[in-house]
C-alpha cells in the first residue's frame, strides 16, 4: 500500500493458485484509490467506477447503486462477510458508509455475487477490514475542510504486536451543504441562481477492532461499528415545504466476533454478530414521526480445503434472524434465513480453471430456488497474457420485508424475483520495458423474471407491490489501462466504458408503452477516465465521469440529458522523521457543469476540498 505505486481499478489478476471466482468478474478497488478517497462516502468512491451507476440525490443524501441495470435492492452489500442491506427496503444507502472505515472494496458483478450471497441480481459489494500484524503503533489524524461549510475529522490509533492488534477509528463530519444552483424549475432558459436549503447533515462514527492470534493456527477477532447519521431531506426544487420539513435520523451498532483457524491447506471461519439499526423519519407538514428498528443476529461457518494442487473445495452455512419493529408494519415481523453453499474449484495445467458454486437458502421455512453457477477461465497463452472467461448462473432475490409487510400495501403473496444470467469476457495484458497495457471486454446477458413493482391496488386505494415485470438486461463493459514510468514520472491512464440495455418485456395492459423501453434511471452509456501522474512525493490526478441520458418515465417519453463531472486532485507527501504529512487539495466539478442525477434535485457546481493528514508510525 505504498503511495507511489498506483494501480487503478484493477481486475483481480489470476495467480497460479486456484482462483475461487474463476469465470466471474470481480474487481478490487485499488488501495491507492481508497487512500485518495478516504474522506469521502462509498457513494463518491463508487461514482468513479464505470458500469456501476450511482443514483444520488446529492452530497449526503440518499445514494443507491445499480449494477448492470438491476435495481438498488439487487445490489447486496457485505461488511466482513455480513450482509448489511437493511432487510426493510432491502438496500444500502451508500452515502452513509464512510470510506475511512473500510480497507478493501471488492465488486462482484452479476453472478459473481453468488460466491458471497444470494440476491445480488445486479451484483454485490464486499467491504472488508484488514489487519496488519507488523504494526506496533500507528496514529493518524485527518482533517478536511470543504466547500459549503463541510468539515470532516478522522482519527485512527492502531497498536499491537505480532500476536495482538487493536485498531480504533473515529469520525465526525458535518456540512451545511448550502450550495448555489440554477433553478431551472423557475425559468428554463434563464434559470435564477438559488441557494440549496435544508440539505445539511452530520455524522459520527466509531469502529473498533481487536485481533488476537490464538496458538499457531487460530485468530480471534472482534469488531464494533457504531454510527449516527442525521440529515435533512431537501425537497425537489419545485416543491414548497416549510423550513426543515423532512429529517432522517439513523443510528446503528454492528458487532461481529470471528474465529479463524488455518492449518495447512485448510481453513475454517466461525462468525457471529448482532446488528441493530434505528431509523426515525420526521415530516413537519404531514405531522409524521415514524420510527423503526431492526435487530439482526447473524451466524456463519465457512470451510475451505485445498485437497490437491488442482482442487479446492469450500463449503459454508449461514443462519440469520431479523426482527423488525416498525410503525409502518402492523406488528413485529421476523425473518429467519438459513443457507448453505458448496464451491468446487479445479485447475488443469494452469490453463483452465473451473468453478462450480451452488447455494440453497431456506427463508421462513420456505425452500428457495436452488442457485447453481458455473464459471471457467482459460488462459490462451503461457504467461496469462490472454484470458477468456465465461459463466452462467441462476440467482434469485426474495421480496424485502417492506414488500411483504408494509402497512398498508404489503403483499405476502409475492414471489421471488428470479434471474438467469450468462457472461463472457476476455482480457489481455502486455508489458514492455516502460509501459504496461491491460484491457478487458465483458459481455453480459441477464433475464430477471417476476420483477417487483409497486402500483396502486384496484381494491384498496393505496400502493401495493406485485411481480409485474420481466427485465432483460444486456451490455458490454470495456476497460483499458496504460501505465508506465518515464524518467522520474510514474503515469497511469485508465479508461472504462459500459453499455447497458435494461428493457422491460412485459405489458401491464394493452396500451402500456413501457414494453421494449429502457428502465428509468439506467443510463445506457457510462464512461470514466482517470489520468494520474506521480513525481517524487507529488501526485496529480484528473478523473472524469460521464453518464448518458437517463429516462425518467417508463415509456421513455422524458429524460435527463447526459452529464460529465470531473475532478482535479493534487496530493503531496512530506516526511519528517517518523511523521508523515499528506496534503490533498481537490477541485470537484472542475468545469462547473450544471447537472441533475435525479430530476429536479440539483448538484453543486465547482467546489473544493482540502485535507491534511498527520501520521505517526513506529
Amino acid at each position, binding site marked *: 500500500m505504498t503511495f507511489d505505486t498506483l494501480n487503478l481499478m484493477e481486475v483481480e489478476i489470476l495467480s497460479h493458485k486456484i482462483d475461487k471466482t474463476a469465470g466471474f468478474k470481480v474487481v478490487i478497488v485499488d488501495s491507492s484509490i481508497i487512500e485518495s478517497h478516504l474522506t469521502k462516502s462509498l457513494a463518491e468512491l463508487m461514482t468513479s467506477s464505470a458500469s456501476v451507476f450511482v443514483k444520488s440525490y446529492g452530497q449526503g443524501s440518499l445514494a443507491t447503486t445499480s449494477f448492470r441495470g438491476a435495481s438498488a435492492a439487487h445490489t447486496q452489500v457485505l461488511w466482513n462477510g455480513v450482509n448489511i442491506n437493511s432487510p426493510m427496503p432491502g438496500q444500502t444507502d451508500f452515502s452513509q458508509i464512510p470510506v475511512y472505515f473500510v480497507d478493501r472494496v471488492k465488486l462482484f458483478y452479476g453472478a459473481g455475487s453468488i460466491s458471497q450471497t444470494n440476491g445480488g441480481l445486479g451484483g454485490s459489494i464486499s467491504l472488508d477490514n484488514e489487519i496488519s500484524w507488523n504494526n506496533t503503533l500507528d496514529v493518524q489524524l485527518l482533517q478536511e475542510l470543504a466547500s459549503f461549510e463541510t468539515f470532516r475529522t478522522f482519527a485512527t490509533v492502531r497498536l499491537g504486536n505480532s500476536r495482538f492488534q487493536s485498531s480504533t477509528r473515529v469520525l465526525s463530519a458535518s456540512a451545511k451543504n448550502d450550495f448555489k444552483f440554477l433553478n431551472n424549475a423557475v425559468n*428554463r432558459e434563464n434559470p435564477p441562481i438559488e441557494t440549496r436549503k435544508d440539505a445539511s447533515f452530520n455524522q459520527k462514527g466509531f469502529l473498533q477492532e481487536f485481533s488476537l492470534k490464538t496458538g499457531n493456527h487460530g485468530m480471534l477477532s472482534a469488531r464494533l461499528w457504531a454510527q449516527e447519521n442525521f440529515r435533512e431531506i431537501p425537497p*425537489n426544487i419545485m416543491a414548497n415545504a416549510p423550513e426543515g420539513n423532512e429529517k432522517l435520523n439513523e443510528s446503528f451498532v454492528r458487532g461481529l466476533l470471528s474465529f479463524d483457524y488455518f492449518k495447512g491447506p485448510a481453513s475454517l471461519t466461525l462468525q457471529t454478530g448482532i446488528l441493530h439499526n434505528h431509523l426515525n423519519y420526521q415530516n413537519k407538514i404531514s405531522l409524521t414521526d415514524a420510527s423503526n428498528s431492526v435487530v439482526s443476529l447473524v451466524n456463519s461457518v465457512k470451510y475451505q480445503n485445498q485437497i490437491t494442487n488442482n482442487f479446492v473445495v469450500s463449503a459454508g452455512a449461514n443462519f440469520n434472524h431479523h426482527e423488525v419493529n416498525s410503525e409502518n408494519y402492523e406488528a413485529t415481523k421476523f425473518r429467519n434465513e438459513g443457507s448453505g453453499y458448496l464451491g468446487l474449484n479445479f485447475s488443469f495445467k494452469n490453463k483452465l480453471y473451473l468453478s462450480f458454486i451452488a447455494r440453497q437458502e431456506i427463508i421462513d421455512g420456505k425452500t428457495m430456488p436452488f442457485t447453481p453457477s458455473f464459471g471457467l477461465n482459460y488462459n490462451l497463452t503461457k504467461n496469462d497474457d490472454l484470458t477468456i472467461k465465461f459463466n452462467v448462473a441462476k440467482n434469485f432475490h426474495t421480496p424485502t420485508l417492506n414488500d411483504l409487510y408494509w402497512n398498508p400495501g404489503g403483499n405476502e403473496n409475492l414471489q421471488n424475483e428470479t434471474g438467469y444470467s450468462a457472461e463472457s469476457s476476455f482480457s489481455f495484458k502486455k508489458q514492455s520495458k516502460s509501459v504496461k497495457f491491460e484491457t478487458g471486454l465483458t459481455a453480459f446477458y441477464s433475464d430477471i423474471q417476476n420483477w417487483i413493482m409497486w402500483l396502486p391496488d384496484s381494491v*384498496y386505494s393505496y400502493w401495493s407491490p406485485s411481480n409485474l415485470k420481466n427485465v432483460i438486461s444486456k451490455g458490454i463493459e470495456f476497460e483499458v489501462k496504460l501505465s508506465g514510468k518515464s524518467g522520474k514520472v510514474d*503515469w497511469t491512464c485508465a479508461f472504462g466504458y459500459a453499455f447497458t440495455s435494461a428493457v422491460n418485456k412485459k405489458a401491464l395492459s394493452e396500451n402500456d408503452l413501457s414494453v421494449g423501453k429502457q428502465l428509468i434511471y439506467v443510463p445506457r452509456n457510462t464512461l470514466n*477516465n482517470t489520468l494520474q501522474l506521480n513525481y517524487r512525493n507529488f501526485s496529480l490526478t484528473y478523473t472524469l465521469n460521464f453518464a448518458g441520458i437517463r429516462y425518467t418515465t417508463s415509456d421513455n417519453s422524458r429524460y435527463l440529458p447526459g452529464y460529465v463531472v470531473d475532478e482535479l486532485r493534487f496530493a503531496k507527501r512530506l516526511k519528517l522523521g517518523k511523521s508523515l504529512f499528506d496534503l490533498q487539495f481537490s477541485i470537484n466539478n472542475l468545469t462547473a457543469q450544471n447537472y441533475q442525477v435525479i430530476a429536479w434535485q440539483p448538484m453543486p457546481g465547482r467546489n473544493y476540498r482540502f485535507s491534511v493528514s498527520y501520521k505517526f508510525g513506529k
Partner: protein
Amino acid sequence: MNSFTKNNTVSKFVKLTNSGFPGIFFTLLCAIFMISSCDNKDDFGEINTQGSKYNAGAGVFILNEGNFGQGNGSLSFLRFDSSKIENDIFFQTNNRPLGDVPFSMSIIGENAWIAVNNSAKIEILALKDLSQVATIEGFLSPRFILEVAENKAYVSDLYGDEISVLDTKNYSISGKISLGYSSEQMVLANNLVFVAFWSNYAFPAFENNKVFIINPANDQLTDSIEVGKEPNSMVVDKNMKVWVLCSGGFMNEEIPTLQQINPETLEVEEIFAFGNIQSSPSSLCINGTLDTLFFISSGIFRMSITENKVPEQPFIPEQEHLYYQIAVDPKTSDIYATDAIDYQQNGLILRYKPDGTFIDFHHAGIIPGQMIFR
C-alpha cells in the same frame, strides 16, 4: 529539482511521448471532447419529448398530477373539434414546469386557477393562451378551489387546518377560515359551502367522517354534518341535493356509502350502503342534466338520482384498465376516464358515449387526474 534543467525537461518530454505517453493525450482528448460536447448553457433539466402548443377552443383540460415529489406533473388539453390532444402545454407557453402535483383546476372568469399541491401554490393562467396571470402562495397543501361569490373563492388544504379565502379580483389571499381539520372537496348549495373532511392523516385525533358548512356571506363556519368515513367526492343534483361519496376509509374500515344531504335542513336524507366493504368507491360526478350520478368502484358505475340502491354491476367494466378519475361532459354527457397504467408513463384518457360504448383513447401526461370541461 535542481537537476531538472530546461533541456533535460524537453528531452524527457520527447522521451515520454515516445514511450507510451500517448495514453495521456488520449485521456486529455477524451476530456476535451466530452466537456465540449456538454455545453454549460445546455439544458440540464428533465426533457419531455411529447410537448405541443396550446390552441384555445372547446375541449377538456386534463391535469396530470405526476408522481409526488418528482415534479413531473403537467397540463394537457383535448380538443373537441379535432380530437387531438395537446400535452405539456403549460411548459410550452411558460418555459417552466407547472409544479409538483398539480391537483385541481377551476375556471373562474377567463382564467384557469390551478392548485399545485406539493408546490403549495395556485397558478392563475389566462385561458386564451395559458400565459401566467398571477401566482398565489401562502398555503400548506392546497387541494380544491371553489368560487363561492363574486370576487371570492375558497381553497381547501390537506395538511392545513384552515380554508383560505381568495380575492379573485386581486389574486391574493384575503383571509383564512379556521376549521381545525383538513379539508378536501367543496360544493356550493343553498348559498352554503359544503367542505369534506376527507383525510385525518395529519389530524389523527379526529374521525374523518364530516362535512363542514361555511356561510360564504360572512365566512363563518356554521355547522357540521356527520357522514360516512372518508368523504372523497361531492356533487349537487338538479333538486339541489348534495351527494357525498364516502369510501369507508383508506384501509376499508367500514362499508362505503353514498349519502344525500338536504342543504336546507342540513340533514342526511338518504344513505345508500355498498354491498362490499372493499368497493373503495371514488370520483363521484354528475351528468349535464344533473340527474345521473357516476363513480368508480373498479369499473365505472352509473346511478340515477331517483334510484334507491347502489347498482351492483358496473356500467363500464374495468377490464384491463385501472380507472383513476372520471368526469362527464356537461354538454354531451360523454364519459371521460383516466388510466395511469404503471404510474410512471403517460397515462390514458378514455372516452365513452353516454350508453357506455367506447369512443377513443389518448395519451395524456403522467397520472392524468382531474378533467375540466371548457
